[in-house]
């Protein structure tokens, strides 16, 4: 399997109902070169199977973090080591 020089491997973690719908809490993902932003990644996730399609059906309902910091849909993935997807938080 050839690796595009722009493809990146990142750890992706899922929480709460995103985790339940995806059916995984964590995985290593090879991000295609045309996936530049968090929003791109959320939309690309929809194509990865029924669980993902359900979890990411409404990207606006999902929040994300890069390397443990909250980010927006337009944030570049850049050199992210870990990306988290989760619903709006409900602690406290």
């Amino acid at each position, binding site marked *: 399997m050839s690796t595009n020089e722009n493809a990146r491997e990142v750890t992706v*973690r899922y*929480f*709460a*109902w995103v985790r339940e719908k995806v059916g995984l809490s964590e995985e290593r993902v090879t991000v295609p070169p045309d996936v530049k932003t968090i929003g791109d990644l959320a939309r690309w996730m929809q194509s990865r199977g029924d669980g993902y399609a359900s979890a990411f059906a409404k990207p606006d309902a999902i929040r994300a*973090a890069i390397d*443990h*910091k*909250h980010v927006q849909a337009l944030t570049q993935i850049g050199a992210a080591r870990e990306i*988290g997807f*989760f*619903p*709006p*938080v*409900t*602690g*406290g």
Partner: protein
Amino acid sequence: MSVSVQEADFDLSAEVAALSDADTGIGAIATFIGKVRGEAHGNKLQSMSLEHYPGMTEAELARIEAAAVARFHLTASRIIHRIGALQPGDNIVLVIACAPHRHNAISACDFLMDYLKTEAPFWKKETGGDGHGSWVDARETDDAARSRWHSGDA
């Protein structure tokens, strides 16, 4: 300053004493405890489960606490948030803010809770009397409460 994410309950008096006993510069201690209520949206609650994002949670809580310390000139502060399975009446969260004077301590508690509610990566799943589990929806009123402090301050 310290934050803890833990399954165990906490002892309010012990936490306050650990923070304030040694410092006679502290004239004001404000605390807030959030508890599991026995009802949710008019339905009886059987239990609650709290999930979080290990690593990110601690970082966010520390960031929020540092923002409160800087903004309200706190002498000492503490955040404890429980995770795992909880029952009605159980403690969920404790914040403590110590300052020379009262308004800073009380406002810091208010600020810490507003930011914790909207930025710390915790998620609650409620199980009702019928055994059905459902994830709690985020409340727009929590975002509105946080925006009182001006977005981006923490």
